[in-house]
């Protein structure tokens, strides 16, 4: 697999992602600058976490208007795999490659903690190494992660399997008590209809080694390369 990791001014999880892909998984990976106009030749593009363009105006919107933003749209339309993590998820909603929007957390706190997540769809190229219904633990670190879509759109997304991850208890119960940021339906990650674009607020790249306390994240990367 040939991976690209997008670099916008303010991206800050780009090296973490690069490290996991190259050093832990031995994949071919390149950084791509936000002024780049084509993503031809790559199999999978990762939009990493951070604060692209300082989160000015709305998180992700300025990044979505760059030449690389248009290249991402072209790449997605040709069926390329795109993974957006945290700020990358925000960029994908601003590009309209994913439905919905990510708003300021319900309680206005910047949340830097671990969460449990239930895997609702394990048939994607990003999730096939997980079991359906499996509960995993990943870190979150965001101020604007409250996923919003209108209720009827959420129902349609659920029917189509576009809700991929939900915040839950350690036992897998999806309830408001385990919803860290006020997202509709406890949604933590969604994909597009075609299943080649996936965005999530948690950070799988930060959960790949026992040294860091967890390694559930490695299964996501594993899904992509096997």
């Amino acid at each position, binding site marked *: 697999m040939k991976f690209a990791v997008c670099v916008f001014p303010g991206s800050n999880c780009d090296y973490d992602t690069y490290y996991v892909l190259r050093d832990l998984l031995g994949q071919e990976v390149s950084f791509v600058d936000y002024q780049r106009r084509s993503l031809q030749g790559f199999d999978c593009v990762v939009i990493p976490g951070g604060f692209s363009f300082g989160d000015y*105006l709305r998180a992700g*919107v300025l990044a979505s*208007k760059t030449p690389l933003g248009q290249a991402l749209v072209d790449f997605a339309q040709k069926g390329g795999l795109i993974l957006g993590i945290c700020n990358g998820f925000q960029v994908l909603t601003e590009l309209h490659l994913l439905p919905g*929007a990510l*708003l300021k957390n*319900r309680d*206005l706190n910047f949340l830097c903690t671990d969460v449990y997540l239930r895997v609702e769809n394990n048939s994607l190229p990003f999730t096939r190494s997980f079991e359906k219904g499996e509960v995993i633990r990943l870190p979150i670190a965001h101020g604007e992660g409250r996923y*919003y879509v209108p209720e009827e759109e959420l129902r349609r997304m659920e029917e189509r399997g576009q809700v991929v991850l939900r915040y839950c208890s350690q036992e897998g119960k999806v309830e408001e008590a385990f919803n860290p940021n*006020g997202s509709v339906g406890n949604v933590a990650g969604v994909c597009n209809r075609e299943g080649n674009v996936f965005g999530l607020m948690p950070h799988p790249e930060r959960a790949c080694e026992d040294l860091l306390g967890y390694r559930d994240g490695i299964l996501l990367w594993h899904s992509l390369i096997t």
Partner: protein
Amino acid sequence: MKVKVLIMPRKGLLDPEGRAVKEMLLEEGFPVREVKVGKVVELEVEETADVKTIAEKYLVNPLVEEYQIE
């Protein structure tokens, strides 16, 4: 000419900033019913500038925000 684009959270959507400010003001003893926090983008543009397109395509996310041009 100077143009202001007033951007507010869409009605019915949770506005945690507005809620926090309202709670603070109530605690300070002010009889406040509702507070909404939005943002203002001030532009200085040529007469020919299409401010509506600027607002709708760039400044506002219509899924979650409403706007007014002044």
